[in-house]
């Protein structure tokens, strides 16, 4: 099953309660403006709740589960779309019901929106909606771009929001016939509960692996590479995977115990893990001075940036920007260890020569890999990367699989050039950590 089919299946399941709602409509449900508004309002409630629950299910972050979906970042994209759709529908839900009541009187519309306090079923719906507005406001940058930790803390309100929305749905239960109502929402609720339980209970106990920071190497003035030795057994992963790292060094100025996603820069054949971290925020700045011997936990691996990381079977074009070089570095290290040829053309986009992260090692790896071509693109001299530039250093770009990892503007530009050159969407793989 392709990743696209897996995502379509997720949407189909999320839309299933709405389809059942439409299938069980009575003839009178659309007979007047008032009843039509009421019906559409109830449908919005059913569809919104199902999408909210499906978004909760996708947030489980169980290692390995993301692979059939093309990696965790792609799964999160669907989670993000489901969350957006859910909020829009659940905002429309009470309004449409109020408009429907408005065909009787303005008073009825108002009391539909604001019933007496004793109407706990309605108020649980209101509470769920207010919580959704609170925890989704940073996800959609309502009030500016949020800090990662603040966003994560607010996002935990999703749990109570889902519970209150379910109480509201079960209590009023006017969306579907009662037996169907109980069956459908019970199944959704149980799977969502399982996902949330994994996320907040089991993932901390089973999913997280303890390790020691055995080496701290400064790669540049604002980039550090940590070597992590797992405390128990080997940590299986592939080139291009990323993990959630939580450092437990009491000397850290910020980010103690906070988990952040980082790409592994080591080859999976190495005994220890390596992670390159660029100073991009409070936690990543503090971790630049983590002491050797400190305890940390890792959770993962996640992601499927390279569908077949251990061999370059078809010609590939790799474009990296800044710290986005890490998945490519991991794969080059792996391919060198395997002694495999690599018909790949890497364009490493950096501001200037001083910012060529791992420049020396990259040149050495490139020369040892048969068929590999390495190019450095310097922004200060050449400006934003152009299609002409890519075609100059990689004339057969249209026939190559594209992997791009870097800042969003670079990724968007490269994908635009690739599409213009005729590379099909199915041959484009991108990794981005801008999850909001």
């Amino acid at each position, binding site marked *: 099953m392709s990743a696209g089919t897996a995502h379509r299946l997720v949407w189909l399941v999320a839309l299933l309660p709405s389809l059942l709602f439409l299938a069980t409509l009575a003839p009178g449900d659309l007979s007047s403006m008032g009843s039509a508004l009421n019906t559409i309002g109830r449908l919005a409630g059913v569809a919104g709740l199902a999408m909210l629950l499906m978004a909760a299910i996708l947030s489980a972050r169980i290692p390995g589960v993301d692979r059939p979906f093309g990696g965790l970042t792609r799964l999160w994209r669907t989670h993000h779309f489901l969350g957006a759709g859910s909020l829009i529908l659940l905002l429309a839900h009470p309004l449409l019901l109020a408009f429907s009541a408005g065909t009787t009187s303005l008073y009825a*519309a108002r009391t539909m929106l604001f019933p007496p306090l004793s109407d706990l079923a309605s108020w649980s719906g209101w509470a769920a909606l207010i919580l959704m507005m609170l925890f989704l406001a940073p996800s959609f940058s309502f009030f500016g771009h949020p800090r990662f930790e603040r966003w994560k803390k607010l996002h935990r309100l999703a749990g109570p929001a889902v519970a209150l929305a379910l109480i509201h749905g079960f209590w*009023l239960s006017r969306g579907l016939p009662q037996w169907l109502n109980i069956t459908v929402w019970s199944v959704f609720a149980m799977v969502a509960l399982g996902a949330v339980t994994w996320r907040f209970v089991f993932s901390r106990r089973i999913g997280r692996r303890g390790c020691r920071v055995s080496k701290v190497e400064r790669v540049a003035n604002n980039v550090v590479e940590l070597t992590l030795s797992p405390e128990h057994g080997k940590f299986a992963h592939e080139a291009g995977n990323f993990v959630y790292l939580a450092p437990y060094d009491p000397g850290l100025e910020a980010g103690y115990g906070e988990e952040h996603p980082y790409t592994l820069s080591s080859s999976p054949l190495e005994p220890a893990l390596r992670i390159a971290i660029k100073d991009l925020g409070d936690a990543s700045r503090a971790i630049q001075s983590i002491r050797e011997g400190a305890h940390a936990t890792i959770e993962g691996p996640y992601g499927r940036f390279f569908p077949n990381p251990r061999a370059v079977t078809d010609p590939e074009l790799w474009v990296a920007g800044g710290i986005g070089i890490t998945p490519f570095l991991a794969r080059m290290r792996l391919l060198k260890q395997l002694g495999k040829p690599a018909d790949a053309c890497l364009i490493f986009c950096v501001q200037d020569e001083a910012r060529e992260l791992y420049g020396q090692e990259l040149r050495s790896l490139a020369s040892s890999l048969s068929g590999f071509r390495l190019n450095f693109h310097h922004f200060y001299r050449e400006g934003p990367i152009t299609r002409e530039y890519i075609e100059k250093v990689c004339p057969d770009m249209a026939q190559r699989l594209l992997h791009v990892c870097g800042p969003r503007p670079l990724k968007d530009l490269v994908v635009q050039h690739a599409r213009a050159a005729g590379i099909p969407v199915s041959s484009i793989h991108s990794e981005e950590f801008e999850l909001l």
Partner: protein
Amino acid sequence: MSLKKPVYTAFVAFWACVFTIVLLDSLSGTDSGHPPPQAHSPDTYTLAEVARHDTLDDCWMAIEGKVYDFTDYIERHPTEPSVLEPWCGSEATEGMKTKGYGRNHSQRAWRAMEDYLIGELSEEE
């Protein structure tokens, strides 16, 4: 594709609509703490009078000592009209309290009935 704009637009539109409904209701002079004026009716009807309005085109019901004219509401009711029809022209308190599998109607439904109140049920036969 950025979702910020459509989601933020929906967020702003939601609160604009909510405030508009509250404002219009306040300006229209209806005190939300009280039922609308038509709810106060001094008329009384006997069960026999109620019984004459026993069709979907003319549907009265007596519920907990009050008489309601649900004729205009039939098509807005979530279930099919055939479910309501047997209760037209009769004492329907049981119907209100035992929808579906014996569950009471919601408080919202009980409140919404006030819009259709036409009088009290006379104790005389």
